């Protein structure tokens, strides 16, 4: 994204748009932007949709959004990196999000996390080398009444223990 001079920047954009023309998902994204009348303040909504469609926000995708909303790429990149919810790298086939909010923490979420790290041999924020599992953390998902909570592929599971979490992970292997 850090184009050092104008011509590489424009080449970059041309390549991104070429890339976009061959992919149906860019069309869907553009329809979504149109729904928001290409308003610049809809940037976060548009990035949500982009991530939903593509799984993560690659550089070409951000350039495409910047071009369509007539925003400088730096602004789009700045927003995409500011918010934790947006991923700039591809995620694993499965995601496992351990809540490390206070309620979960005092009920042993750290133990669940440690067990998962040991088993998967990765740190929070990373994906296993085979691309199977991404291990992530959350700061409270509002399910504190059933703490500790872990979200497996988008489904919240209540009252997790290290054993329960490992069993779940094993099903993915």
């Amino acid at each position: 994204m850090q184009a050092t001079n104008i011509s590489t920047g424009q080449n970059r954009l041309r390549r991104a748009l070429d890339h976009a023309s061959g992919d149906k998902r860019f069309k869907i994204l553009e329809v979504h932007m149109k729904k928001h009348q290409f308003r610049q303040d809809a940037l976060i909504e548009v990035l949500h949709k982009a991530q939903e469609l593509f799984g993560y926000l690659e550089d070409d995708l951000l350039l495409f959004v910047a071009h369509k909303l007539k925003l400088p790429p730096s602004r789009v990149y700045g927003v995409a990196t500011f918010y934790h919810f947006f991923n700039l790298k591809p995620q694993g086939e499965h995601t496992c999000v351990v809540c490390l909010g206070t309620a979960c923490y005092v009920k042993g979420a750290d133990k669940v996390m440690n067990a998962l790290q040991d088993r998967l041999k990765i740190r929070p924020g990373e994906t296993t080398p085979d691309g199977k599992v991404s291990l992530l953390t959350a700061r409270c998902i509002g399910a504190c009444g059933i703490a500790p909570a872990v979200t497996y592929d988008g489904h919240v599971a209540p009252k997790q223990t290290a054993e329960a979490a490992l069993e779940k992970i094993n099903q993915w292997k």
Partner: protein
Amino acid sequence: MQLDDLNAIAEKEKAAAKKVCLRTCMSAGCMSSQADVINKNLDAEVKARGLEGEVEVRRVGCMGFCGQGPLVGVDHDDGRHELFEFVKPEDAPAIVNSLKGGPCDVQRGDPQHPFFAKQVKIVRANGGIIDPESIEDYIAAGGYQALHQVLTEMKPAEVIEEITKSGLRGRGGAGYPTGLKWGTVAKSPGGKKYVVCNGDEGDPGAFMDRSVLESDPHLVLEGMAIAAYAVGADQGFLYVRAEYPLAISRLQIAIKQAKQLGLLGGGIFETPFIFNVDIRIGAGAFVCGEETALMASVEGKRGTPRPRPPFPAESGLWGCPTLINNVETFANIAPIIGRGADWYASFGTEKSKGTKVFALTGKITNNGLIEVPMGIPLRQIVEEMGGGAPDGRKIKSVQTGGPSGGCIPADFLDTPVDYESLTKLGSIMGSGGMVVMDDTTNMVEIARFYMEFCMDESCGKCIPCRAGTVQMHHLLEKIAQRKATLRDLIKLEELCDMVKNTSLCGLGQTAPNPVLSTLKFFRKEYEDLLQPDQFGPPGNGQPNPQSAPK
């Protein structure tokens, strides 16, 4: 839509009521244990027995006792209520069987338990009772009457007067008087004004707003509409965090339904009043709960706070006067209008009126949401309602106010829960998270935990917070690992002071609070971890005794 139409909907809904109602909690907590399947199975079971004429199967919002979920409530025609806990999908036949006196060994809860009996429900009155996806249910429960009353019988100034008289204070943390804030926005010059509902709820351990949005979305919309009328706005934004997908989808449904019935949009109740609401979805940044950061985020920018003044009430979204209130604050509005400021002010203490919803979590027997009158002693909440710490442990402290708050030691459990009393103890009311800690909890570790949170969530705009939280976290780690000396502790205290007084926004200004409050009450735990200092006690010129804390 006119009052007669509204009443007709309510009458129709009431006339259709069946003898028995089976309510399944379909809020996020219980949904994580297949509440949707339970509801489906109950429905199938009732139909299979041909009972659909007398038994209604209703999906409802959070009943509050989330730790015992999934929950199914039963309302009998003789006024009896039953509660089933830890329900599994395969329990459906037994539950339906029990309606006719059949055997049923699903665990029963006690609806008269102090956890329920001591509650006073204003905000959560409909929670766990009505179907959050049905506007008719809300209307049958008296919904949108307050909006009608305001639009047809009251001037904007009278609405503000009523809210001021009720003594309602903001439930988002700081406790600013709501009526006063509305008055400022109403007085601010400008043709275009906005109303924003803060549903970011970033405090870990807090889920009050989530449950209100998921259980009773129309209550929040009605409150926003009344506010918009009072301050002269025609556009509202509901900012909800992305972590709450169920709340978002229920709000989308609610907005659509309200528009269809003419309760949102143009010419509401055939008056000139126009009000539209858009949902804005957050993207996982705690600082976006801060009002100026939230507005930047609504405008599609990085959520970094800016100095105040100007306050949003004067210059907010796109430079226009903007009213920002918390979800629970808005949820209090319709009841206040409907039943009067005096009625509302009869709950609570002199300076903290009404009720407050708390999320009771951590090392406590009964986990869940409670709504209690302000001023209730903390002890009643954690011991009687919460049932104390599990496994025969003793409660050591109660954390309130999240990363901006503090830890209240067990010795102070008789403190009444109101804004002033909690502030006096070095904590804050905050948005309502209450995390209970038992005697196995290491308080230095807790302070370190919160500091890590603030360090991660600092937006980086100002240096005291960006660099200070990193340094404080480092010192706390050093202490926890028994590598620190008294010098480090003194440096930590100096840093707390500096970050508190020089940070730009509330995040930095309050980040030291968990450290300060644990130091105040549990200093010995810190000192026990300190190592001898090879240069002897600090004092020979360094660190500077003048800047050392008193």
